[in-house]
């Protein structure tokens, strides 16, 4: 159960960026997985060199966060301005192919930048020690993950609901042309959205980096899981992403617990079932079409 929630909160951070981008721009961003990988690599590399230079290990948390955010902040606008901008108005499926091409490019870019060997930075993970819950022991770092993910989700929801920017963004989701006519700078909203999504993906990667070995292929693994989650929850819905992450997380941990051999497969069964029963996802009724 707790495993499920830990897993869910980790996936949520990645899925929410994906769903945000889809909600606003109608782009199912396959390259999201590479942004995640890029974030993980950068964070691992910087945190590694931070620790290597003998700085206080506590600082490595800051390094992780900053690395993730900066990666998103750089890569997001670069991709949006440099490539996606020229593709708006094409069919959704074409955009999937474009981001798939981007995914291939970024995947190798990451390899070129960081090499093909796995990177291991476990210090921030080990530093916080473990927590005893009943007779089970959990690393404290996992709870930090949950906190970060809840914070990110809450902040995003708050921005969307309360601020001017957020309201404009929701207007664009609702009716792109009408909001353009009302003087909203749609292309800027797109830029901001994509950057925010990219930052979330990279952040997700950055905070995961200490818990696992960072190696080529993590992007491909994560993106199909994130797809499963957003599809389960309903594309473009923030609450849907949270629910989807929770469902997928719980199903997966239940599978791991009771029948480990069906772990991977269970996630996709859920995805297929939801698609079959509710083709547009659980949260995609028209009135729920907001972020």
């Amino acid at each position, binding site marked *: 159960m707790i495993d499920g929630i830990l897993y869910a909160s980790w996936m949520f951070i990645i899925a929410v960026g994906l769903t945000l981008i889809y909600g606003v721009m109608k782009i199912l961003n396959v390259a999201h997985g590479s942004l995640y990988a890029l974030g993980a690599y950068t964070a691992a590399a910087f945190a590694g060199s931070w620790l290597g230079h003998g700085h206080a290990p506590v600082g490595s948390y800051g390094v992780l966060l900053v690395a993730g955010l900066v990666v998103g902040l750089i890569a997001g606008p670069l991709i949006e301005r440099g490539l996606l901008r020229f593709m708006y108005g094409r069919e*959704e499926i074409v955009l999937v*192919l474009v981001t798939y091409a981007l995914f291939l490019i970024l995947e190798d870019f990451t390899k070129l930048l960081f090499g093909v060997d796995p990177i291991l930075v476990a210090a921030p993970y080990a530093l916080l020690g473990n927590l005893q819950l009943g007779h089970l022991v959990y690393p404290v770092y996992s709870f930090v993950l949950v906190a970060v993910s809840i914070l990110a989700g809450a902040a995003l929801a708050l921005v969307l609901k309360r601020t001017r920017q957020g309201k404009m963004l929701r207007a664009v989701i609702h009716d792109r042309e009408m909001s353009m006519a009302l003087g909203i700078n749609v292309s800027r909203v797109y830029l901001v959205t994509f950057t925010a999504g990219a930052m979330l993906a990279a952040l997700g990667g950055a905070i995961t980096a200490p818990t696992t070995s960072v190696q080529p292929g993590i992007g*491909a693994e994560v993106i*199909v899981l994130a797809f499963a989650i957003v599809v389960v929850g309903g594309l473009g819905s923030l609450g849907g992403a949270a629910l989807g992450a929770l469902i997928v997380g719980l199903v997966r941990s239940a599978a791991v617990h009771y029948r480990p051999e069906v772990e*991977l*497969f*269970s996630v996709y069964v859920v995805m297929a079932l939801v698609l079959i029963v509710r083709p547009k996802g659980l949260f995609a009724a028209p009135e729920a079409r907001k972020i």
Partner: protein
Amino acid sequence: MGRDRTLPTVWAALVVLLAAGPFLPQWALSFVSVALYLGIVVLGMALLMRTGLVSFGQGLYYCLGAYAAGTLDHFYRISDLLLMAIAGALLAALVALVLGLLLAKYRDIFFAMLSLAFSMILYGLLVKTSVLGSTDGFGLSVKTFAGVVLGRHWVRYAIYAFAAVIAAVCAAAMHRYLDSHLGRLAGAVRDNELRVEYMGASVHRVIHLNYVIAAALAGVGGALMAATIGHVDPETTANWTTSGEFVFIAIFSGTGSVLAPFLGASIFEAVRTFALERFPNTWQMALGVTMLLVIMFLPGGLWSMFRLSRRGA
């Protein structure tokens, strides 16, 4: 555009391939076989794309075909190439017949996502099935063709020749099909479903049929792959990255002609062989860049270049 020269080209290519086979070195035989089976799979993808659907789960049928061939040899000691191909196609078509009932209701990214989900389910299953070798898969070998025992020396050529014949027959049949009443409905479904329904045709059935055809082709392709490589595993068949490769080749070659997938697959395989040797770490990057360029400047794929130059002449 003058007379349609597609069919004569197909048969001429087959004759050339069959005649040249015995004189080709081993590596060339394998290379052409690979290009042929990839081309067969992509031929099916192209049919789906004509119908307006992009499947990110064609690996499912590719994998089924490969494993059908593999299990025949591995567990039943049936090492017959013909039987393997038939089994692969049948299994894939059967599964597609069932899944197609569901999938035919979906369009766009939902079609892509659901087909991806099905493929990943199979992947997840295979990875954990130790009888079938889990992540490592298992090896197989071809020994006979339609009951005729093949000498050691002739196995490669037999696979190659068989792949060529199948490819040619599939391409010719596909060409006929696309020209038929049913086949032409594919493009109509892509352009405007509502009008197709008004005219009294069933969109659902067109999609379902085309989906099954595409699956059967992927199944044959998978079986031929298993025979050529002599090994099957989940990672290179059912994982979504493999399906992505098929999508890539289909986009790259275009859907303008039944010859396009084979041309596209040959170039793809040639570049891959070369690039993996020279620049193993930038190979996907090259793929991605090519794909972007094709999407931006050649929406009809490589094949549309021929069309343009011919019109210009």
